[in-house]
């Protein structure tokens, strides 16, 4: 776009009717041209007016928490689709602190070593790859929990906050349940990493035979 002004592009930009390269050029131009910025602002006003008169819905309450997490770290440190999460980091720290006593036995216990590697892989997944989060609906007295999962169903990480005992994670499907493993408390949190190859729509947390929480996963 260079020094050329917008012409008829302001409305097209506001409507999303420009191609990506055109929009990028326009945005760059706007940073140095107050006249065109005002023109685009007027077009934004018109589009926002129309949008505001369409069917309105209440934003889901969990969205606020998700949005807030975006702004907790300085810009530039965040990947687009795998946002850094302070709660996740806190959970990871709690988990690692909880694992410290186990470190003492690590050299002597190959199986525990393997488990730690799996959990480390889980934390790396959470920190570096795109994922979604679903919250468990807990029955009274059950600890809050959530599941982070890959959009393609290739892995799941179930996290239980403030768990006092191990809970079993189950996949609920077609009236049946498949036990996937146990989320065992380490410090203040329990975690279970589940590498999988398929998408699971519903997970449950079980205390013995009793379902204490369930989560619906969206795909």
């Amino acid at each position: 776009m260079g020094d050329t002004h917008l012409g008829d592009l302001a409305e097209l930009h506001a409507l999303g009717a420009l191609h990506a390269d055109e929009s990028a050029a326009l945005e760059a131009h706007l940073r140095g041209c107050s006249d065109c910025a005002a023109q685009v602002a007027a077009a934004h006003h018109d589009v926002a007016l129309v949008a505001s008169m369409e069917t309105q819905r209440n934003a889901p309450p969990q969205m606020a928490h998700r949005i807030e997490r975006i702004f907790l770290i300085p810009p530039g440190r965040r990947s687009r689709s795998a946002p850094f999460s302070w709660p996740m980091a806190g959970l990871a720290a709690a988990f690692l602190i909880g694992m410290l006593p186990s470190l003492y036995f690590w050299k002597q216990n190959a199986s525990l070593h393997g488990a730690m590697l799996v959990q480390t892989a889980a934390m790396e997944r959470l920190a570096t790859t795109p994922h979604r989060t679903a919250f468990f609906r807990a029955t009274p007295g059950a600890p809050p929990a959530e599941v982070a999962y890959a959009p393609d169903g290739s892995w799941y990480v179930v996290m239980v906050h403030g768990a006092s005992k191990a809970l079993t994670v189950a996949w609920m499907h077609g009236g049946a349940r498949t036990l996937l493993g146990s989320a065992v408390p380490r410090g203040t949190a329990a975690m279970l990493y589940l590498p999988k190859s398929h998408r699971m729509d519903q997970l449950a947390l079980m205390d013995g035979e009793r379902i204490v929480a369930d989560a619906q996963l969206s795909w």
Partner: protein
Amino acid sequence: MVPAPEGDDAVAAAFAAHRGWAFGEAYRRYASLLYSTAYNVLGGSEEAQDCVADAFARLWRIPDAYSTARGNLRNFLVVCVRNEAISRRRQLGRQARLESRLAAMPPEHTELKLSDPIERDRVRRALLELPAEQRTALALAYYDGKTHSEIAAELREPLGTIKSRIKLGLRKLASALESGALTRER
């Protein structure tokens, strides 16, 4: 956490200065509008949530994405979210969903039904008052999420003509909605 000032201008200024609290406050103020805007384009709650979150994350990553010279923050955010939603829909190619949402609109976009009494049909009623060629071009852009070149190809009109029709149509539509009195110009 810094307490949020009450004025929209103060929030907009802090948003332009890239203050985290202002981003959070802006979301709180406009959450339902932004979510609804995304939902109305994408037609699904999960996708709308992803869209709004991605739009905010994108703005957070770009230090000079917004300045007060860009006008009202609310309008700016609506357009950002809407454009993100349109981009996603193009990528996903989910035209079928759009078609069902636009069931009241004939394929040719030459006529619009007026039978639905609810508030959102004020937009459609206002659209009806536009000259047919402006209405068609604007509907293809706004509802179908098509680019100007796609609209020009579909309507077999020069690109410049399409741009002008969309520009004029949008201005008339907004003016009619604001005033509540539709300008009858055929």
